[in-house]
């Protein structure tokens, strides 16, 4: 008796040589690739005039000055809830698309998929289609193989550098940085960021490919929990295709076992074995199979977008359910509603936010002091925010039921100028006369106002005055 071999601990990566395919989904994917890559590479170069004091880059994450610019919108750090809202929308959007269309994000829009697609395009252009690439892979390392490999790697590297390079342009003025990068005078962080992103793009897009999706990405595992019987995924109509046979005989199914669906698959799987974790639903096997079905004179859709609920119905001979009936259901409507509500909320918040603002921090060490004439004084640190592109004169005032006097430290009047697009710190004193109630009470409510002298625009904050009775 032989002892059973222990299972292998490690497995080598199986090479995949996706064949070229054309069809509706391939064309759609080319378009999505062109648009997403176009947006990614070109956005930092769009200019947007905001006046002389502010940067003129349309989309800019200005870490140094703590600002985020998006065309006409400017986000300050204290408005980070916009980013939180967008992230929640992104999350809900993924729920929506996953429950309706399965891993459509993976198949069409994920950067890993888009860049891998681009890298495979380059690979095919230099080394030829599937069969040529298999031959080259098997061939010895002769001059031709080296030439092709090095050409391919060089082009990949150029794309990778452009990818890493585009990223850093989002964080500072793009034309200036581009000149600095070429001249060698840019900040080391810019170079190291480009280096890291170049390396990840090159390795992930060129060599890791499906390994990233299968072993590194948590999304394939999470998505399984979001799908239900009506979720559309790429599937094989085995009730129509089986029994498969290369020869057209009586009683055989439509599948002629031509392996076209397997050969085009970038994940290296056979969709006819059913839905599996590796499948990113890129739909290229649908295009490949439709092409074959057209050639042998059969109806398209042997491999198609199908829901789990379709199988028993179609086996029973019912006609295919239209796509919109799968997509439009309580769950997706609910996700869409939530998504839109948050979207409306954010847009609403964007329009009602004020261009001037203040925050008040009462000085609590000490809570109050007694002046030589017996009056009681509290001190408050104010932060005055001017979001306008030009300097503004702000008048500080207070309203309270008690008789309180306000004075702005360092100014004879209670008016100070705040520079454009900036926050200024100011200190105000609030004084209660010795005989007044506020001086002897515990706390007295008061409201501090800031008013734009020119436009009359104003904002307020509530705080308290601390008297002697603590």
């Amino acid at each position, binding site marked *: 008796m032989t002892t059973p071999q222990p299972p292998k601990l490690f497995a080598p990566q199986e090479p995949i040589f996706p064949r070229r395919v054309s069809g509706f989904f391939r064309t759609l994917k080319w378009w999505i690739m062109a648009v997403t890559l176009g947006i990614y590479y070109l956005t930092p170069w769009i200019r947007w005039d905001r006046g002389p004091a502010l940067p003129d880059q349309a989309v800019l994450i200005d870490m140094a000055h703590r600002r985020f610019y998006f065309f006409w919108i400017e986000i300050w750090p204290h408005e980070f809830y916009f980013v939180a809202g967008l992230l929640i929308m992104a999350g809900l959007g993924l729920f929506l698309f996953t429950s309706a269309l399965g891993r459509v994000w993976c198949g069409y829009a994920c950067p890993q998929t888009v860049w891998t697609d681009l890298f495979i395009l380059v690979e095919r252009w230099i080394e030829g289609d599937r069969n040529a690439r298999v031959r080259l892979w098997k061939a010895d390392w002769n001059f031709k193989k080296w030439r092709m490999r090095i050409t391919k790697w060089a082009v990949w590297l150029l794309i990778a550098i452009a990818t890493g390079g585009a990223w850093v342009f989002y964080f500072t003025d793009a034309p200036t940085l581009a000149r600095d990068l070429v001249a060698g005078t840019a900040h080391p962080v810019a170079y190291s960021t480009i280096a890291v992103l170049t390396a990840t793009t090159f390795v992930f897009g060129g060599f890791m490919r499906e390994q990233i999706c299968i072993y590194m990405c948590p999304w394939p595992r999470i998505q399984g929990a979001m799908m239900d019987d009506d979720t559309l995924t790429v599937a094989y109509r085995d009730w129509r295709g089986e029994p498969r046979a290369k020869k057209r005989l009586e009683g055989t199914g439509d599948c002629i076992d031509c392996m076209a669906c397997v050969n085009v698959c970038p994940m290296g799987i056979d969709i006819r074995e059913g839905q599996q974790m590796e499948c990113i639903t890129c739909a290229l096997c649908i295009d490949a199979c439709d092409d074959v079905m057209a050639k042998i004179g059969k109806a398209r859709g042997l491999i198609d977008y199908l829901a789990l609920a379709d199988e028993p119905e179609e086996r029973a001979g019912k006609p295919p359910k239209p796509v919109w009936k799968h997509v439009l259901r309580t769950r997706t409507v609910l996700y869409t509603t939530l998504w839109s509500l948050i979207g409306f909320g954010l847009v609403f918040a964007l329009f009602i936010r004020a261009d001037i603002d203040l925050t008040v921090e009462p000085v609590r060490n000490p809570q109050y002091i*007694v002046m030589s004439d017996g009056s009681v004084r509290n001190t408050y640190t104010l932060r005055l925010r001017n979001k306008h592109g030009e300097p503004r004169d702000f008048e500080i005032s207070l309203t309270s039921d008690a008789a309180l006097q306000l004075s702005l430290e360092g100014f004879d009047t209670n008016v100070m100028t705040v520079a454009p697009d900036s926050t200024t710190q100011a200190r105000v004193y609030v004084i209660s006369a010795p005989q007044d109630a506020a001086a002897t009470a515990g706390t007295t409510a008061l409201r501090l106002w800031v008013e734009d002298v020119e436009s009359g625009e104003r904002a307020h904050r509530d705080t308290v005055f601390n008297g002697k009775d603590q």
Partner: protein
Amino acid sequence: MSDPKKHQDIDKETGVETTGHEWDGIKELNNPLPRWWLWTFYLCIVWGVGYMIAYPAWPLINGATAGVLGYSTRGEVAAEIDRYKEQNADLTSALAAVELASLGDDEALNRFAVAAGGAVFRTNCSQCHGSGAAGAKGYPNLLDDDWLWGGTIDDIAYTVNHGIRNETDLDAHWSQMPAFGDVLEKEEISQVVHYVMSLSSTEHDATLATAGAVIFDEQCSSCHGVNAEGDTSMGAPNLGDAIWLYGGDEATLTETVTYSRFGVMPAWGPRLTPSDVNAVAAYVHQLGGGE
């Protein structure tokens, strides 16, 4: 030895062996790891060895191995402090030489002085005057508008430089109230205390106060002034205002008059750089009571 075959549990669906463990009906397939994952593991080991050579790593009795790069977080902080000192060198020398009364005219220098002075204050002064500069009994509140030795920025700088009642500096502020317990009778002290209380409209005995006025005129007015308004040239406090360094109640005032007080402040001129003294004077001056 048991038969290994017995432990083999093959998953029916995939034909792959499971790990043999089961959690609530869930079994884990024992698929092989991709080989590149193994390489990342080896790479981490190589990286770890390199890190140990380059950076502080092995703890020994007197600290850790230094690493060939000579990196330390303390060294980084020290380098950063040096960098800022170098960056601020111009401002620091300007601050050391500035005419303090006109410091407010130079906005940038003033801002630097106040920020630097805050740091000096919190390091050297807050132990007595409090981190918020509100003082305590016997330690003056620096936020209010009452100054024993003057509240202009130059006055403050002088006090900081030379201190109060310290024998190490001949230029230190010096004044000493006599302990009137040796001079006056207890009843006379009580009378003068009630007179002093009457000056700041505190509740008092009018008969005692009237008698105390005469004693005050004889014994106290030479320093505190005829109207008890005080004198900053000799550090005599204003007795008519609402601010008391030690307290304005009868018991505390009696104690003060009987035994007198002797608060001291060290001279900071020899301990701080001239720019630091100017900085802390600017900081204290802008706290809300500067004259």
